[in-house]
């Protein structure tokens, strides 16, 4: 056990180091090829004097000479960057706001949208998958599978833009006219996020985001159910004369959920990609929107900083999960 933990820790450190180096190298190449981000600070109408450029370059840490030599991996710079990361300094955006601060104030909304989308997605996926499995090869089965696949194949930006008009302007407009502006339903169907009602106004984009993975989870649930319905322990339970409802709930459903829950855990990475679009278009002040804006404003260092922070979080999280497993699960022996 001890050896496993040490090995896993070393592994995590190595992976983290390599991943950070990869990101560092991408940043370096970006500056070497695209030029000093300090220029974006001044814009087209101001011609910065060399001194001004120097000042801004220092603030962004883009003043290192190796950043002018394409292909140079800039190891020296890498260690400086790591030192800054260790001190919690992930750089600043074009308006001099620390990225850590930007991310910190945005995490709650991203967690909110994830909470909504994961709930909707998991419940809908599990429910639909169950129905499909129980109605196997019947109309409902085909209908659900076709429906989830078709929805899953629509690019997320079309879904969000469509909802903005259909749910936000047309349906929401009708609600506001008939129920009044302050009615909870009217607020839910506003066309963009409102900081005064963070939970209500995040429901619609949350549902939009959940569309991405619904097909996958419904399918997995269906397969898993079908396998379990035929499993020996279910047959035994039936043979023992247990009520069908109890068999379904206590045996089949519970066992079918195991892979589904693993999938939910693994899907956050994918959901983050969707969150970039959803938060960006719904004006939700979340981490995804930060990336959306940075992409639109050519603030590449921000994109890199945010991804770096996510990578670190992800690796720490998976390390923690693995260690917990090692401690908690008696079946796992790693010696």
């Amino acid at each position, binding site marked *: 056990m001890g050896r496993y933990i040490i090995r896993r820790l070393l592994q995590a450190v190595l992976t983290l180091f390599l991943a950070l180096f990869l990101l560092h190298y991408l940043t370096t190449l970006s500056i070497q*090829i*695209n*030029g*000093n*981000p*300090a*220029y*974006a*600070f*001044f*814009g*087209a*109408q*101001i*011609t910065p*004097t*060399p*001194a*001004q*450029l*120097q*000042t*801004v*370059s*220092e603030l962004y840490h883009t*003043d290192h*000479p190796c*950043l*002018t030599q394409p292909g140079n991996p800039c190891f020296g710079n890498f260690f400086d960057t790591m030192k800054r990361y260790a001190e919690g300094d992930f750089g600043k955006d*074009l*308006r*001099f*706001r620390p990225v850590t601060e*930007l991310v910190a*104030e945005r995490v709650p909304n991203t967690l909110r949208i994830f909470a909504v989308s994961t709930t909707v997605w998991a419940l809908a996926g599990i429910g639909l998958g169950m129905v499909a499995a129980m109605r196997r090869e019947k109309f409902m089965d085909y209908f659900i599978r076709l429906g989830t696949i078709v929805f899953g194949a629509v690019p997320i930006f079309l879904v969000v833009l469509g909802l*903005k008009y259909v749910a*936000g*302007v047309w349906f*929401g*407009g009708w609600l*506001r006219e008939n129920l009044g*502006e*302050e009615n909870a339903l009217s607020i839910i169907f*506003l*066309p*963009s996020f409102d*900081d005064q009602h963070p939970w209500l106004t995040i429901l619609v984009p949350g549902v939009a985001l959940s569309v991405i993975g619904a097909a996958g989870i419904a399918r997995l649930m269906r397969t898993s159910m079908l396998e379990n319905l035929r499993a020996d322990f279910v047959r035994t339970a039936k043979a023992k004369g247990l009520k069908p409802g109890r068999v379904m709930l206590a045996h089949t459903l519970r066992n079918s959920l195991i892979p589904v829950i693993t999938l939910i855990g693994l899907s956050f990475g994918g959901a983050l990609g969707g969150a970039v679009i959803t938060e*960006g*278009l*719904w*004006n939700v*002040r979340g981490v995804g*929107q930060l990336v*959306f*804006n940075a*992409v*639109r*404003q*050519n603030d*590449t260092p921000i994109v890199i900083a945010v991804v770096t922070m996510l990578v670190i979080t992800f690796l720490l999280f998976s390390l923690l999960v693995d260690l917990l497993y090692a401690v908690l699960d008696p079946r796992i022996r790693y010696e």
Partner: protein
Amino acid sequence: MRATRVIALAVATGLVLSACGTSGDSGESKTDGTITLSMGTDPGHTLPPDGTESVSSTLINMVYDGLFDYDTSGKLVPVIAEAVPTSTDNIHWTIKIKSGLKFQNGEAVDAESFVRAWNYGAYGPNAMGGNSFYSRIKGAADMVSEDPDGPDGPKTAPEPKAKELTGLKATDATTIDIELEKAFSGFPTMLGYLVFFPMAKACLDAVDACKEKPIGNGPFQLKTWDKGVALTIERWEDYAGTKPAYKTLTWKIFPDGAPTFPDFEAGQLDMEAVPEENYQSAKGTYGDRMLEVPTPSLSYIGFPLYDDFYKQKEVRQALSLAVDRDLLNEALYQGRYTPATSFSPPGIIPGAIADTCGYCKLDVDKAKELLAKLPGGGWPEGKKLKLWINTAASGANEKWVKAFGDQVKQNLGIDYEYELVEWNAYLAKTQAHEVDGPYRLGWSPDYALIENYLTPVWGGGAANNRSGYENPEFTAALEAGDTAPTLDEAILKYQEAEKILGEDMPGIPMFYSTTATVVGERLDLDSVVINPVLGGADLRLLKLK
């Protein structure tokens, strides 16, 4: 100006003047009401010498008062200054200011408060965006220093020689004495621009705090600022000037790319810029509550005059003649924009007149004639027209450049290609004269004078402008304008200078954009006065119904 300024160009100045109102405050009387506007991003440069970018300038213009303001025709109106100053030699200027005015922290607005702000802005290491605007004042050159081995080299720039402008003095509490490097008759006009606003001593003593909570002298003071969400300013009850007719103004932050118009249509907003795609339907739906105002934002194509091929005047003239600006305006902008026939926007900026450009109309025959004069008897066989554009995510700029290329292809049979460059590199490359084809850019005025469209863009000699344009006649004409005894005479000289541009065609002026703004039911339509020079509605004048 800053990146955002140019991005804002794409959506025109609309984002700034777009406004929206929440409806939860119907119980308050209208003078205590709240107006809610939208803003494209958090203001990032809230010190006046730094506020050259559009979002920050919107805030600064509400929180600070300057020496002068511009009226809707671009004329200078004294605010803190007693009167528009005159000068016998156009080098020495004396400005008297009103006494008894205060900053919001109680400090006096005196001559010293201007001197300290300008010195701060002119000092290179402070990296203020408006730094170049002080360069006409004597001693400005000593306030910035050159980096010995360029910005990318290991050495840092030495400390500048001086920390104060030698040409700037507060002789007493209400008198500012200014000496310029060279004569400039348009100098007072510059002083209406916000980089010449005053700053309190307390602000400079704690600059970082002052960026977060400006210490202004204007009708509003900052109340709350929740970054990325909303920025609220409140009427300053001790303001000595005309008090605004409403109490609170909240800007909701809608980052560029997040649609805002649905929020207006959903009744959440009172005033909003109309995106192009909504223009037709908005026109029908809102009728006279939709205001259309031309802006002074020029979109143009610049030529690399340091390139041997584009050094040939005929090439530049022919390309300009190949474009049907009216058709482009119809196809892309529903005919709302103003096709450019000059290098500065007539009717908006004082001194600017139409038809200074002899080649800003469609004349395919003449274009072909001009091309035939080239050494090879025409456009070189197989040479593609390489158009440089920056990768703007919004695509608004790519759009008209594509239409430009299509027109050249259709009318002159010249194939075109794009050279797409990331924004940072684009700015750096155009500045360093590294582009080898026509490039796209825009220009918005900083102060209301035709000169602002000439000197910063095309003047100063080949090394100082992006095109590398240099014509002694042009330089002389500008010089003559700068040193002319009166502004009216100066303007005549500037117009002559512009006509030289119109013959030389160092760039192709394309169009001036127009914004459309819809005003919601809560606002008094008559109170929405759009000031084209400021680039939007004068928010101080808004009234609730």
